[in-house]
């Protein structure tokens, strides 16, 4: 079973995404910000995929992505955001 880490400060979003991905047979863990995600990774838990909100307190999704790249932690990360716009997309091209 693939392991997924959901990183989102909105509790209802965590819950609904957990249900969605458990239906798709993922093993799901949730945390509330990038810092908690790093703590989880540093504690030795490994994941096949990270699904992260962009805007969060303490450490946001972009900082998390940068940290993973810098640390050469090769876990695919999908950013999700309620600030979705062409501008946001272009930041990553």
């Amino acid at each position, binding site marked *: 079973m693939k392991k997924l880490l959901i990183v989102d400060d*909105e509790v209802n979003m965590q819950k609904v995404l957990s249900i969605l991905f458990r239906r798709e047979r993922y093993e799901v863990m949730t945390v509330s910000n990038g810092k908690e995600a790093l703590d989880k990774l540093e504690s030795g838990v490994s994941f096949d995929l990270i699904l992260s909100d962009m*805007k969060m307190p303490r450490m946001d999704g972009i900082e998390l992505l940068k940290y993973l790249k810098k640390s050469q932690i090769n876990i695919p990360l999908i950013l999700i955001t309620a*600030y979705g716009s*062409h501008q946001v997309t*272009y930041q990553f091209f």
Partner: protein
Amino acid sequence: MAAGVAHQIRNPLAVMKVSMEMLREDLAYPDNDTEAGDLTGFILNEIDTLDSVVNNFLAFAKPNRGNKSYESVEDLLDFTIRSIPLDKYDGIRLIREIDSDIGEHYFDRNLIVQAFSNIIINAFQCSEKGDRIIIRAYRNESALCIEIDDEGKGMSKEIVAKIYNPFFTTKETGTGLGLSIVHRIIEDHNGSIQVDSKQDKGTLFRLMFQETT
């Protein structure tokens, strides 16, 4: 501030949408002709409407900063087309007629994609199954021309005269800001818009941008 408010609205909308899509699968899948399919479909459509209302208000409230550079016209149009949820408009053909040597133009890509997108989505919304929408890009002697040509329900002259007025809309759920935003963006690019519309025949939007030197 507008972006903050938008975030506060979009997050609950996203939760509602994902939850409703799962419920729809549980209640109506695979036979979407059921009443449950209709009702969940209404809710999903209304969520999309609210989301587009937020997007339009955000775009209208936001000042245009002007971040222009030379951009590939073909790439911008293809990016715009890819960002449109074509699966919502089943049976409408999108035809792309972009000159192969169309080259580049001096655009703020974020803004111009938004303008193209608003016009193309309008074209889809006023079209029906079996209609086609043509997106053309070509150059005449002095200008780059982008056309969005639909076979939808068209507009009377009286309506065409008002389409850029903020908050004017003929849609039941529109904000009336989409074409106001387009108008402002095209003006910011020293461009002009021609609209040729005939009721029950369709509408042609032609955007013209003078060559920059």
